[in-house]
């Protein structure tokens, strides 16, 4: 009988490449070393070249006085504020456009996507024209065109002046549409309006519990309550009663013409309208196609099964098809929301002061800190994109079939 022992295999250097157990690790280690070397070379080269140009990397400009004015500010800002605060104003302006844009794009996109599948030939073709028209023309052109339309075809503020003005305000003299923007009345919160807000919030909570109750009741007994009308009543009636009970604490402040422009009221600039509208319409065309693909991905048997149970077409769509289609729809939606957010950096074309316009535009020009400003901008867009992806991925997980 032989010793039966296997010879102890000694490690040799050649095994790193020859032995399949080690080879993949070796390749990865080498790739990593090359990657680190390339990154090091890039950074080192940048620093050296900057030094050669006599430039250093310095972010202290963020704490220096900005000196310029920004027209649209969501937080207090004057030309005495810092460049950092100007960047923050721009960031909020970017987020505002992205937020409103995503909501409008989703609403329009879902409608367009569903209607494109309509059996009505004209409706389906109209939607096809809409989608092909918007998504095949660069979004920058839409932004500029909508802005030009708003500027050229609406009256200047001075047209509202005089005893017999050329233009007049609409909606009971409450709203003025001008070539600089649209002025809406703004609410003034008087004494006691806190109770009004509280009532409204309580109504919202009540609606939430009512709907839960209605759902439970329906699942248990099959009895359906008129959910929409009761919710609608709950939403408005208590608040309206309290409003009159308190003696109308909330009043509206109407915009009026003073000097060169309208004063008071809520002022929505044309740049914001044009940018948001163009981005929404453009992105909605893509979302429409995603919704259509999601619906088409659900087998026809689902529709047939639902209608054999006696459901009406509208309910088939909302109860059977769309919930399943969401699984297909949501992942590509993320990239469209991200596209919209990133496309908002075209704002400079219409003079909308987003973060590209403040930090990456005026601040960059006034301080000459190109590299720093660009790094901050890239960091900002990266963070926003990752955050949006994370949030929607979280929702996406709740839509997917569990336990698979």
């Amino acid at each position, binding site marked *: 009988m032989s010793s039966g022992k296997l010879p102890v295999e000694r490690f040799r250097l050649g095994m790193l490449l020859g032995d399949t157990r080690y080879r993949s690790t070796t390749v990865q280690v080498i790739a990593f070393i090359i990657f680190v070397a390339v990154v090091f070379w*890039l950074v080192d*080269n*940048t*620093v*050296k*070249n*900057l030094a*050669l*140009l*006599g*430039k250093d990397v310095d972010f202290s400009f963020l704490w220096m006085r900005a*000196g*310029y*004015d*920004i*027209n649209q500010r969501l937080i207090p800002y004057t*030309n005495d504020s810092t460049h950092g605060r100007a960047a923050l104003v721009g960031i909020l302006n970017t987020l505002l456009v992205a937020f409103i844009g995503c909501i409008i794009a989703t609403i329009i996109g879902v409608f367009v996507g569903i209607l494109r599948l309509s059996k009505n030939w004209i409706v389906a073709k109209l939607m096809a024209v809409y989608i092909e028209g918007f998504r095949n023309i660069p979004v920058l052109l839409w932004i500029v065109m909508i802005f030009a339309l708003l*500027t*050229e075809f609406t009256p*200047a503020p*001075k047209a509202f002046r005089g005893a017999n003005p050329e233009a007049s305000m609409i909606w009971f003299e409450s709203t003025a549409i001008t*070539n*600089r923007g649209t002025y809406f009345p703004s609410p003034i919160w008087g004494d006691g309006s806190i109770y009004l807000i509280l009532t409204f919030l309580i109504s919202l909570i009540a609606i939430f519990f009512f709907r839960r109750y209605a759902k439970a009741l329906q699942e248990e007994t099959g009895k359906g309550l008129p959910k929409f009308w009761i919710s609608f009543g709950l939403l408005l009636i208590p608040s309206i009663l309290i409003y009159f009970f308190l003696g109308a604490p909330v009043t509206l402040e109407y915009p009026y013409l*003073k*000097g*060169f*422009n309208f004063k008071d009221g809520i002022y929505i600039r*044309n740049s914001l309208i044009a940018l948001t509208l163009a981005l929404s319409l453009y992105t909605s065309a893509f979302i429409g196609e995603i919704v259509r693909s999601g619906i088409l991905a659900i087998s026809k048997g689902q529709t047939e099964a639902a209608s054999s149970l006696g459901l009406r077409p509208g309910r088939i769509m909302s109860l059977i098809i769309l919930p399943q289609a969401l699984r297909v729809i949501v992942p590509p939606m993320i990239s469209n929301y991200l596209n919209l957010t990133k496309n908002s950096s075209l704002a*400079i*074309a219409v*003079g909308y*002061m987003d973060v590209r*316009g403040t930090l990456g*535009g*005026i601040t*960059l*020009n*006034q*301080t*000459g800190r*190109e*590299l720093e400003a*660009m790094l901050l901008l890239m960091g900002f867009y990266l963070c926003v994109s990752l955050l949006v992806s994370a949030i929607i991925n979280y929702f996406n997980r709740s839509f997917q079939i569990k336990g698979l």
Partner: protein
Amino acid sequence: MKKSLFLSVAAILGLTAGVAAAGTLDDTIARGHVKCGVSTGSPGFSGVDDSGKNVGFDVDYCRALASAIFNDPMAVKFTPLSSSVRFTALASGEVDILARNTTWTYSRDTDLKQTFLGVTYYDGQGFMVKTALGANSTLDLDGATICIQVGTTTELNLADYFKANDMSYEPLPTADNSESKQQYMADACDAYTTDASALHGTRINMEVPGDHMVLPEIVSKEPLGPLVRHGDDQWADIGRWVLNALVIAEEKGITAANIDSFADTKDAEIHRLLGTGDDNMMAMMGMPKAGMYNAIKHVGNYGEIFERNLGASSGINIERGVNNSWTNGGILYSPPFR
């Protein structure tokens, strides 16, 4: 512009080999042309004529520089730059000299690491309004919406001026002169502010110039001049002294037409300037002896350049005002060519 921004960023990121920090003249001579950054279009200062040739006040300065080096006013490659990318383009070496109605300021000179070569045009920020507006002074503009180009010194002056006078305004930022003009014409803004010279140039190109007026107030000092990167004093000297030579030529009455008649002049400085005497002054900068002669011969003196591009014969019709030789009541004054 996209391309220039990309190139500049690429250069700054160090993807291109080291940017030349010295020896710009040698590089230029080896290349055979001057790389000059001009504005994307500012009537009178930089533009393109019907035959596709670059023309303008800033353009002519670069042509004088090219004439001094190469004896050829056409040996220039012009790069149109927006106000946002101009400094990056210069810093990255995409252009070697910037003649782009750029205001000489302290922070641009020091923090942005640039060298200003002098002043080609003493300007100031003004406001243009429609005569129908009824404003006679900038002090009538309280609450007005004002069109302004982003990335310029004008937006800082605007903020300062309105604050100093306790007035409010709404800025309408635009990317360039043509967009400002478009917004202004559509009444999206009540007034348009930029350097007064550009306002005059823009006004003259309006359909009915009489419907518009430039308000009398000048709210800032805007000395416009060419600039180069820090770090190459020889190149800066050449640019500075070509400009000075144009000013001296006007002072001495030397024009493109009569320059050859000065061959026998008794004025020693003219001989030093034109290289017609025994001294080879230009060798001190590593330039051809007849460099300044060629510059003036091809492009003319400062007064001729001004007249051709901004004066009465150009249609823009800007008064010489302070931009006149000190001997004629202006403030243009060159150190002696000695």
